[in-house]
């Protein structure tokens, strides 16, 4: 594994979890915050924790931020601070700067001043949840594969006894089966979708599909699922 150097500016819920997770993955993490209490929460769970004001370029430099491969700015409710920090990080020559936006307008501003990526945690998670709630069969929609969703389908009767390879879901219906959920001795088990796996009555398939392919599948298999 390639060990990368990260600077995480701001240790709210997002920054804190990010810093800890990257550290656990074996990367070198420099964590920055203005509050001592916030720094204590990452103590021993990152390479270095520094008390600094991210909106002050001199303090950022002194903290050694410039050596990071990637910097992540997650400065909570202050638009001015996260905007300035993003600008300074770019000026210090950090190639990848990822900034958490507070709203769409803030995001546009961040784009303009050179953030390589802008993220909207609440908005993204909210939209995913909306899709899952609106269609209870949908487990997740894939943010990077627009128009596709991951959903649960009952195995249609005409496929019982056939193997996954024989069902030709991939070729005919453009559907990928991720796994099969099955009850065995009163427990639900997840069975990997191997080509040789045979469908059984009561199986629930977790599939990735587009809406239109799904509709065609349902029609072809007698409106099952």
């Amino acid at each position, binding site marked *: *594994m*390639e060990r*990368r150097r*990260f600077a995480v500016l701001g240790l*709210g*819920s*997002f*920054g*804190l*979890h*990010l810093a800890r*997770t*990257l550290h656990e*993955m074996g*990367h070198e993490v420099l964590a920055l915050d203005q509050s001592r209490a916030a720094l204590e929460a990452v103590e021993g769970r990152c390479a270095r924790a520094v008390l600094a004001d991210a909106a002050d370029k001199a303090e950022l430099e002194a903290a050694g931020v410039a050596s990071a491969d*990637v910097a*992540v700015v997650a400065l909570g409710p202050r638009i001015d601070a996260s905007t300035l920090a993003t600008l300074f990080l770019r000026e210090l020559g950090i190639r990848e700067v*990822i900034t958490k936006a*507070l*709203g769409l307008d803030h995001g546009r501003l961040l784009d303009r001043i050179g953030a390589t990526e802008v*993220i909207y*945690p*609440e*908005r*993204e*998670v*909210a*939209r995913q*949840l*909306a*899709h899952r*709630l*609106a269609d209870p069969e949908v*487990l*997740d929609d*894939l*943010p*990077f*594969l627009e128009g*596709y969703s*991951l959903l649960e389908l009952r195995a249609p009767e005409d496929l019982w006894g056939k193997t996954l390879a024989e069902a030709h*879901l*991939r*070729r005919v*219906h*453009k*559907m*990928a089966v*991720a*796994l099969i*959920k099955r009850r065995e001795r009163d427990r639900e088990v*997840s069975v*990997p*979708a*191997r080509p040789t796996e045979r469908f059984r009555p009561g199986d629930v398939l*977790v599939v*990735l*599909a*587009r809406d239109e*392919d799904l509709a065609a599948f349902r029609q072809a298999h007698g409106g099952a699922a």
Partner: protein
Amino acid sequence: MRRYAVIGLGSFGMPLALELSRLGQRVTAIDANPERARDAQAQVHQALVADATDRDNLRAMGVEQVDAAVVSLGGHAEAAVRVVLHLTRLGVREIVAKCLDEEHGEILSRVGATRVVFPERDMATRVARRLHSRSVLDYLSLASGFSVVELAPTTKQIGKRLAELSLGQEQGVQVLAVKELVPERVVSAPAAEFVVKDSDILVVMGPEDAVRAMQEG
């Protein structure tokens, strides 16, 4: 079409209410702040100004008739707990609540939330997974221990057929789709004979452990 109450229209509740509405669902959006309720008004079935921590208000709005309620009250941890408790007592079957930290999440579950979301943490995990390896372009953790990653092919993989790539197929890892750049399109459920080009992006799914092993290798 299902009926929803979205209680709290901040940076989580607002996009949620609008997206549900866009998906054709019947949404009652509730906030104590008139300005926020007004912002939602044109785009949802009904927008109401009310203090949801008051159980009588919830009942008066007919909240017990919704199929699902979503509670996201920003930094007001205690208010969220109260609202979830009221919803539970009113018999709302599906209650989704946004939590501020793990403990808050546990409290919400104990008073009856059927699902707790923690957007900041979930997104942090997703970003961390992606930053972990240069070849991982995006990462999503799915239900039941499965994950999906978007991968740039390594130099060794370019020019090979999908069937020849050792991605851990025997553990259930599979290529769900290939995003082609020229011309820009998505090939879903690609055939085993598909030949990987250097401009392609592979969308791969499998059990969490197997996907992680693939990234490390």
